[in-house]
């Protein structure tokens, strides 16, 4: 028994070492976050509009049959980077004529209304995800997060974090061009 016990540390070390060996595979990138949704249809969800706002709600049906790819942006009034991102998205809508849908994530309706009144409302539709249920369906890792959804209702691109700063905006523009929502020259 004692002898067997003395082998235990070695055994554990060998097992852990085996995992390490696997982990060193050069093709493996530990920093990549795969999106489960890419090239898949958008998940089933149906969200009411924000109470006290004229903008209609958002559900899965609104994301298919559009003439061009649309942007779905998850935001909240309590999310500080969202404010910064709001300027970028508003400009995209204003200058490029893109369609922007919003999911208002775990936000009090009155806060969201105040936020949108103060900063302006570039969204064609906003679903109020008070419970965070739709957030789970979309596989949200945080707020803000932005998706590009193709005309057939396929998720084409996912951006985690705020689209602010030249690099992020550049990447997002490239994704818009690749999805056909934007013409290359305009960017």
């Amino acid at each position, binding site marked *: 028994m004692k002898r067997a016990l*003395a*082998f235990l540390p070695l055994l554990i*070390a060998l097992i852990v*070492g085996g995992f*390490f060996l696997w*982990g*060193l595979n050069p093709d493996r990138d*530990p920093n990549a976050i795969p999106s489960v949704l890419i090239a898949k249809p958008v998940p089933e969800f149906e969200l009411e509009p924000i109470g006290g706002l004229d903008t209609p709600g958002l559900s899965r049906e609104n994301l298919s049959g559009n003439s061009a790819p649309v942007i779905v942006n998850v935001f909240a009034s309590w999310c500080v980077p969202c*404010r910064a991102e709001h300027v970028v998205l508003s400009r995209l809508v204003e200058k490029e004529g893109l369609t922007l849908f919003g999911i208002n994530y775990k936000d009090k309706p009155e806060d969201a209304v105040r936020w949108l009144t103060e900063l302006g409302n570039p969204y064609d539709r906003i679903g109020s995800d008070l419970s965070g249920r739709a957030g789970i369906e979309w596989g949200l890792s945080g707020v803000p997060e932005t998706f590009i959804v193709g005309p057939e209702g396929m998720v084409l691109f996912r951006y985690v974090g705020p689209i602010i700063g030249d690099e992020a905006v550049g990447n997002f523009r490239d994704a818009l061009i690749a999805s056909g929502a934007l013409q290359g020259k305009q960017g």
Partner: protein
Amino acid sequence: MTPEVGHFALALALAMALVQSVLPILGATRGNVLWMQSARWSALGQVGFVGIAFAALMQAFVTSDFTVTNVFENSHSLKPMLFKIAGTWGSHEGSLLLWVFILTVFGAAVSVFGSNIPDALKARTLSVQAWISVGFLTFMLFTSNPFDRLYPPPPNGQDLNPLLQDVGLAMHPPLLYFGYVGFSIVFSFAVAALLEGRVDAAWARWVRPWTLAAWMSLTAGIALGSWWAYYELGWGGWWFWDPVENVSFMPWLMGTALLHSAIVTEKRGAFKSWTILLAILTFSLSLLGTFIVRSGLLTSVHAFAVDPERGLYILGLLALSIGGSLALFSWRAPMMEPGGLFKPVSREAGLLVNNLILATATGVVLFGTLYPLFYEAITGGEKLSVGPPFFNAAFIPMMLPLVFVMGLGPYLSWKRADLAGVLQRLRFVAVLSVLATLAVWYLTQGGPVLGYLAIMIAVWLLLATVREWMMRVRLFEVSFAESTRRVKSLPRAAHGMSLAHAGLAVAMLGFTGSSVWKSEEIVFVTPGEAVTIAGFNVTFEGADRVRGANYFADRANLTVRRDGEILTQLYPERRTYPVAGSNTTESAIRSTLAGDLYASIAEPASKEVGASGAWTLRILYEPLVNFIWIGSAMLVLGGGLSLSDRRLRVGVPRRRIALSLSKVPAE
């Protein structure tokens, strides 16, 4: 030419290490004293040559010699001198060189100061130490040469990450490495003892000062790193359970267990194979840390550049050293005769509980840290991350009973203790802890039960420790002069234990206060707007642009008021380093013993908004947070006091104590 000298010195050090890895151990087997004593000179030779290499690299950094790739990639001629020097260990190659340098320093220290260690044990220990040297020197020479040249030489360097341009962080790696690598000598002692097949009280006594010295440095290194994260990263936290933090914390937990189990082996001859195993595991976890930081195995905010070839090489080293030593352990440990017997209530039992909990806690941290990797391997590529919720839920409840037993431990006598008598003596302490907790409850008016429990147990440990110390010197029982005499005659190890235990209690108050009763506000402000937090009123007066040595900064001007009275001005900055093209946050802190008011400024939400003068401010109030640093300092000083004890000094003369802790007053 200096870089070539440095490179050549490394090769010579490798040659020395090769000789030392064979000759002394053969001498020990054959009884050849001359061969055994050769270790002294080869150990000194190693430290000399690695020291030359280290000095050569530092010279290249100081003179900004951009013909050396490493200097080009990690320095810049405009950088302040202190950070040029610190750049020496800022990169993968340079830090590895520092690693090996400390390894050889410990080897040389044992050969010079370990005059009372038997020749055979010393020779074997130094040979084992040389095996580690060989492993890391070849690793450096074959895969990570810090002296690689660059042609044509570029006009200027690529800067060091400006986040790392900070005095606290410049000192953080050397201290951390001194701790990490210091455990190497304990590991070598353990392997040597296994080879000899003998572990006794004397062995434990020789090992303890080295463990203590390494543990102190590691404690200081971790505390410094945590302090740096607190005031530099601008998030207001001091511990994030990031993989890189965890890999420095695991050797600390194991090392703490080792410190305590070595006492039992020394005093009672028990826990022999356990102490050996802990010695092996502590250093194995240090190696694991070195590996994880450099292999790109896990996602972390502060890992070095990824290179699978290097990772594979270190994994090989790990397999040899950890696998080899554990195989040796599994073969030899069952042969060790068990030591002294003890009752379920005794100091041995108390220390056993300490060891079991610390080992389990280490296991939990290890599992949590590696789980993403396990999960990905088993599911074939699915990812997840393990964050603070897991660690807090799994780790903290384990620590509370540990700290409770810590309060009792010093009262228990060896072999068999009288629990009823001990509890009798501690009843006032228990009552006071409950009263203190009630007071905290009254002041805070709400919070999780676990928070109050943690406060109660921390107060319990603090008071029990103070009471135990008072009993020893019979304060207020005998005349003051008599007590003073007793303070002087009490072994320093006892003072050290009390100070370190009290330090943990103080730090724990800090951990609890600053995480449970923290308040935080993130606001978007224009000049003149104010925020109220924890009774403070913070007004944003405006932001302006200032210039520094190699950066420019946006600096916010905040006025802090309480009850309408101006307390102070705070100037948090957001710095931009044009050469490195990156930003750092310089938080501004109003620090008091009761808590820190912590302000940081984030980038203006956008250029348009910035022009109108609106900024994102983050204001935090962290109660008792400074207790963490005070407690950590007490832990380190307690270790130092203990190290300076005459009993331990047998193996370690005063010179080494001065080296590892200059704050200990000379006798």
